[in-house]
């Protein structure tokens, strides 16, 4: 068996996941892309079990199981969060979620009062 085949598969899948996370506007699609990345990780873990002389056999597969559960838990909470956002805004476009506070509404004349002094 050539381990490089599943490894490269995993690498490409991870890359696709990254691309998806960055490309998609819809939060659910973003989550799907994340799933791709997580699965790539799992594939690496499972493949690793075949390539390494591990101190503990099947650690990779165990880890992969844990990751699947972890992902399920996260997706559960994540979807709840996304739905909460949808309830409040009727949209799940991540582009509408700002990182910074809204642009300052104060006029320049007021600024020395609060900010500079």
């Amino acid at each position, binding site marked *: 068996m050539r381990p490089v085949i599943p490894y490269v598969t995993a690498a490409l899948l991870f890359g696709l996941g990254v691309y998806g996370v960055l490309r998609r506007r819809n939060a659910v699609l973003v989550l799907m892309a994340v799933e791709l990345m997580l699965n790539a990780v799992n594939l690496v873990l499972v493949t690793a079990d075949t390539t390494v002389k591990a101190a503990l056999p099947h650690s990779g597969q165990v880890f992969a199981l844990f990751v699947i559960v972890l992902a399920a838990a996260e997706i559960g909470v994540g979807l709840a969060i996304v739905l909460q956002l949808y309830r409040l805004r009727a949209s799940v476009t991540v582009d509408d979620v700002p990182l910074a506070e809204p642009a300052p509404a104060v006029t320049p004349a007021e600024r020395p009062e*609060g900010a500079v002094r």
Partner: protein
Amino acid sequence: MSLVQSVDNVAMLPAYLAAGTAVLVLLGDLLVARPAVTVAVAALGAAGTAAGATLVGTAGTRRTFCVGDDCSWVWGGRAALVGAVIALLTLGVLALSGPLLRAGRTPVGEYCFLLACAMTGGVVLGAAGDLITLIVALETLTLPLYVLVGLRRGSLAGAEAAVTFFVVSVVATTVTLLGAALLYAVAGTLHLDRLGATLADRADLTDLPLTGVAAALVVAGLAFKVAAVPFHAWAPATYDGAPLPVAAYLSTASKLGGVVALLAVVQRALPGDMTGPVLAALAVLTMTVGNLVALRQRRTVRLLAWSSVAQAGYILAPLGALALAAGRTGDARTAAYAAAVAYAIFFVLLELAAFAAVVALRPADGDGGTLADLRGAARRHPWVGGAFALALIGLAGLPPGLAGLFAKVTVVRALLAGHAGWLALVVALNAVIGLAYYLRVTASLYATPTGAAAVRPARTVALALGVATVAAVVIGFAPQLVLDVAAR
């Protein structure tokens, strides 16, 4: 050979206490259904966890869940410190949550339960001895916080904050997991100490570019937790959208968790010449960007968030000494790790005090508000304002905030012990930029009030603020206490 791993239940006591707290809170909420009882149970549980962590920690290092020499659970000085501090921070945040919970729009039972779950993650994190436990514990610490951040009912900012936090966190977790998986693919083990030993022994592995990248990915993923630049952009938005006590938890306990996780992998698993340069670069970027952007913030919590980004840079800085050969000698390494832990302890204390003061000065269930809302606060509430000022000055690292001063001194000393003078200079210059905005806040506290009505701080908040301030003053005069526990 028994089917199940042997367990040292004494060593596990802190984890039991923490998890038990969570379960008890849930049960209490279901059966008694009185918020006061629920909160009391949570508080008692947190206090008990802290006590248990300390008690077990004083008896020397205990290991359990061992496979051969590799143990998944190592309850030593560091674990006890982290466990106790996280439990105490949880207790503090519970106290800060008083007004929020009393305002009645937050489900008390679930709130306390989630907090207790996060605490459990934090307690386990300190003792984690393998990558799986580490990552799972870290997720346990983080996942309840997604929910808590989004708990401001009807608040779009809260929902957005939760989404931001969640998405970025999931992505970062994936990066960490990939790093861990690659490490496993290379070294064939997941136990930190064994990993460290393997990488140290086998030069063929360390020569492999894949190993370095794997290490870097693990560090990068974990750096997200401490909000290091460029993994930081979630922090200000999340802190500002979250309820104030949750923001406090995020910037103290959660950040401490990230530091602990980073330290665990850096100290035990990964070779210093791989992580050192990454950490040094992250430290420089983090403190500089954090401080510079903080200069331009107008909202209190955002300013604190950016400042805590910068502070994360100071925490990482001593580890940057590992980038140099001189920084990887035994003494210098020890000094660097101890300095990072000590700085983190000083920092969480001051940060908790600062958030407590903001909570005290803001109306219940309100957000952090703008800096203008704080004008003259110290004239209306001399004690609260004074404590806030002390905390801010401590964060800036100047007397009379001696705790913060000694924190900076610790970092600089560790850096120079590792001959990383240039990094020490960067830290020093950043302290100057930092003072600029801390002074701005402090000065506006003492400015002429604009006439907003005084809010009477809740008793629990005042208590938390008082305790944090007194603790800051005490360790300001006796920093050796912290240095001693941090060095263990």
